[in-house]
């Protein structure tokens, strides 16, 4: 296959084309959609989902799924918020290692249950989804952390910008994406994640430490959800025990599946997921412009996930008939 043909057939190209077509279609109706300002809005909608999607991508590539990330986001954001409230003398940047570390521990619990007891990740994380959410209520006594407690320096990260009017939070998100790309493509354990997902039976025979790889992906997913928790506090300025992170897992899974990560494991790319996140961001930004009520958003997410699954299935059927099964890349 020649270079340009393989480029055209790539999943990322398909998503990019969809983004362009979608933006042009919306722009034809509402020209103000095609301005820099709406790009800013789109970008501001995406950082949390992008950070969560990087962890979820690794988990799904390893043939698992993590439904608890929304609850991890809520719990870590709450712990950070309580640090701001009850220990204001602690320097606020310490909330970053606190939330990320706590997230990693919560993710490790998921991973340990999955590997040690050989349980399906979907049931384990359904259980911890409820467990972590309950813990959030317990530690916070079901009270919200209000705006005045969140340090203004942290809130400013979502508003002030080093360059081009792009806030810090977006740079952090894309930095995470870059790191994940490096991890997935250029580290030994990153490649092992793909090997494990491609063939869980063959992977241990090739000397891959399945337990270690599984624990790693769940820990990363948890740690990134913890980072997303801090970002939530920065972006919205409050932490609510029941709302914060609720439904986050569904947005993230939607972005990951749209981004071409195969739920059968072993296949997925960081650029694809980034584009998937951007596509979701475009849809979310276009809805209010087109006068479509926000209540439709959830249905659209659901429909988009199903369409992406069907497309993914079609592509795989085609790939099988042509005998070109790509893995990783």
């Amino acid at each position, binding site marked *: 296959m020649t270079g340009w043909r393989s480029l055209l057939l790539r999943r990322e190209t398909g998503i990019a084309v969809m983004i362009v077509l979608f933006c042009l279609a919306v722009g034809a109706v509402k020209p103000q959609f095609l301005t820099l300002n709406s790009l800013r809005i789109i970008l501001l909608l995406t950082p949390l989902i992008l950070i969560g999607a990087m962890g979820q991508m690794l988990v799904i590539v390893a043939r698992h799924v993590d439904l608890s990330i929304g609850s991890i986001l809520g719990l870590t954001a709450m712990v950070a918020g309580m640090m701001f409230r009850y220990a204001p003398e602690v320097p606020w940047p310490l909330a970053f290692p606190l939330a990320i570390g706590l997230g990693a521990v919560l993710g490790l619990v998921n991973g340990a249950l999955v590997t040690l007891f050989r349980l399906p990740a979907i049931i384990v994380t359904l259980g911890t989804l*409820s*467990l972590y959410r309950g813990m959030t209520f*317990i530690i916070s006594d079901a009270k919200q952390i209000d705006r005045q407690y969140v340090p203004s320096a942290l809130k400013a990260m979502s508003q002030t910008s080093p360059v081009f009017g792009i806030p810090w939070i977006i740079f952090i998100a894309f930095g995470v994406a870059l790191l994940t790309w490096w991890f997935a493509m250029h580290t030994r354990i990153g490649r092992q994640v793909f090997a494990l997902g491609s063939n869980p039976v063959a992977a241990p025979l090739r000397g891959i430490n399945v337990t270690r790889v599984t624990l790693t992906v769940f820990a990363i997913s948890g740690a990134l959800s913890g980072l997303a928790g801090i970002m939530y506090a920065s972006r919205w300025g409050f932490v609510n025990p029941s709302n914060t992170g609720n439904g986050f897992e569904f947005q993230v899974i939607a972005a990951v599946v749209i981004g071409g990560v195969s739920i059968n494991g072993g296949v997925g790319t960081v650029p694809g997921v980034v584009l998937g996140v951007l596509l979701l961001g475009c849809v979310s930004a276009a809805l209010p412009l087109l006068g479509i009520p926000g209540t439709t958003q959830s249905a659209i997410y*659901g429909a988009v996930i199903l369409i992406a699954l069907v497309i993914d299935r079609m592509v795989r059927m085609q790939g099988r008939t042509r005998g070109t099964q790509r893995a990783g890349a």
Partner: protein
Amino acid sequence: MTETSATARDAAPPRPLWQVLLIRPEMMTLILLLVGIFAGSQLSEFFLDTDYILKSFTLSAEFAMVALVLTLVIIAGEIDLSPAANMALSACLFAWVQAAGVPLPLAVLVGLGAGLAMGALNGALVIGLQIPSIIVTIGTLILYRGLAQIIAGDKSIRVPESFVGINDVMVAGIPLPVILFCLLALVLGLLLGTTIFGRQIYLVGTNEVAARHAGVRSARIRMILFLMMGLVSAVAGLMTASRLGSVRYDLGLGGELQMVLMAMLGGTYIFGGRGTILGTFLAAWLLVIVTTGMIVANVLPAWQLCVLGLLLIVSIIATNLIYSRTQR
């Protein structure tokens, strides 16, 4: 395992009868249930009031009925996470067309038909396109709940007076939802335990490929199960609407946790092929005893959320251990 060529010498010695009868997941559920009842009676003298327990059960009866069918789905090696969203959408559709002037019986049919259609969509994606049911039903969970949100918005839709109050209907002193649950358990228990169809469900869940080679119509069986799932979810949705008197898009929100929990707690094997209706039946009562006990003991709702999550994980670990010890 039992080919004609295998002689008696090759076979492992059969386990003693008491082990076969006693060491099984349902027994764990039964013991937990008895412990729960005992602990509850120590907590409060009002706890052992049968009327109170039955009344509490009507709150969970809808989820419990769905959990019974979910047990069959899990035994067949699939899973369905969308029933709670299905309940919401079929109930919203029912209330919406009813409020638009459609006569009540027809509106009920619309609700049930919608449930069936949702089950059919799940089945078509899982069986027709061979996409794993885990991810399909996560997608349809979001879709159905989202559609319900579009129909109902943020408001609640009232249902007519004549439709309200299924939980107050008493048959021989027992609330109607409890009776429906017990009847469904009986029917499904007989279906699973005594019919060819039931045995085929186990076979499909144990080894789908082998089942197909043995002439079992695996695709048809799984499709029927998804359709049953859709129908029972719609029934549960309408029952909830009748109990609450109004319908909102967040009806049954998070119910999938309780449904899966009931099936797991009842010893259904998450990888398929094993499990019984009796187990889920007992687990539903156990869960009601536990939640009622927590309410009687003034446990905060937040702790209940934790307990449910922990129970799910512990029960699945225990079930897996029991199966790995006693079989194979």
